[in-house]
């Protein structure tokens, strides 16, 4: 069987500064367009979600990873494969809840914030909130409802950047109704 013209699996490397600066321009524009930080956070989350639902297909096609058996495996894949592939970093997975349904991703160096200093009047802005939406959207597409949020952010004076992920439920697949 021929496997003609199979796409090269190694991702096209791109200067991450272009990405970082483009993201910065996006956030800046949103801050101009919306009066308050809450609304900016919400828009970033929404955009991220829309990216995530598409990004998951690219990820699955490239990584050839099958369905995860449990949330721990999911955490590993997110940290070691997905973050590596798209942002070039490998966050550490820590703070597991006893039930194994909650964990934290600790980002040592968040590439989105390379050139950022938050002014005092944006103390409630969650600068990298796009990531939250991406994670939520992507996982929803593989039947996992997950609550994602920034628990700590170096931009807001914390020591580390921490994304907290909480498994809510499996989204069951249903047979569509006979007559739609």
């Amino acid at each position, binding site marked *: 069987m*021929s496997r003609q013209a199979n796409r090269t699996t190694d991702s096209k490397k791109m200067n991450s500064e272009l990405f970082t600066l483009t993201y910065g321009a996006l956030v800046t524009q949103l801050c101009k367009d919306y009066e308050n930080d809450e609304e900016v956070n919400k828009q970033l989350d929404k955009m991220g979600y829309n990216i995530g639902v598409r990004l998951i*297909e690219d990820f699955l096609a490239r990584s050839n990873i099958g369905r995860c058996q449990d949330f721990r495996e999911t955490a590993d894949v997110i940290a070691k494969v997905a973050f590596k592939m798209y942002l070039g970093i490998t966050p550490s997975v820590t703070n597991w809840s006893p039930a194994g349904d909650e964990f934290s991703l600790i980002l040592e160096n968040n590439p989105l914030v390379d050139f950022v200093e938050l002014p005092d009047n944006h103390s409630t802005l969650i600068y990298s909130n796009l990531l939250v939406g991406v994670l939520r959207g992507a996982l929803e597409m593989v039947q996992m409802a997950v609550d994602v949020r920034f628990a700590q952010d170096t931009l807001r004076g914390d020591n580390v950047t921490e994304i907290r992920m909480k498994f809510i439920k499996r989204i069951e697949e249903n047979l569509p109704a006979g007559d739609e």
Partner: protein
Amino acid sequence: MTVHNLYIFDRNGSCLYYNEWNRKKQAGISKDEEFKLMYGMLFSIRSFVSKMSPLDMKDGFLSFQTSKYRLHYYETPSGLKFIMNTDLSVSNARDTLQHIYSNLYVEYIVKNPVVMLGQSLDSELFGSRLDSFIRALPYYSPRAA
């Protein structure tokens, strides 16, 4: 050696794409009904296979064959389903279906922002690329079978 037809379903059961190359016998029902029938059967087979399996499975349902044709099935973790019917001489079309997913569906549908996901795919680019990919398959030959 031939490819009969191809279906792509999304995870909600709507048929995103259908095309046929060498199909001599039609179902005699409307395409919409045929898609529902097909999806319903796949849905049942999946649950049947997973309940009847005496061991844990990795890939689940892969294909079935009758006296005349073989149905190949590939499902992504995101719930997209690729179904291709061929004649019996094609023993395994998994690579082909995977290729359609990662090199055609992801490239021309997912990465095309004006294509709404979850609706039927009328992207001409995708259609023509898929058509030429199928026609170039080593086991594509419309005269045989």
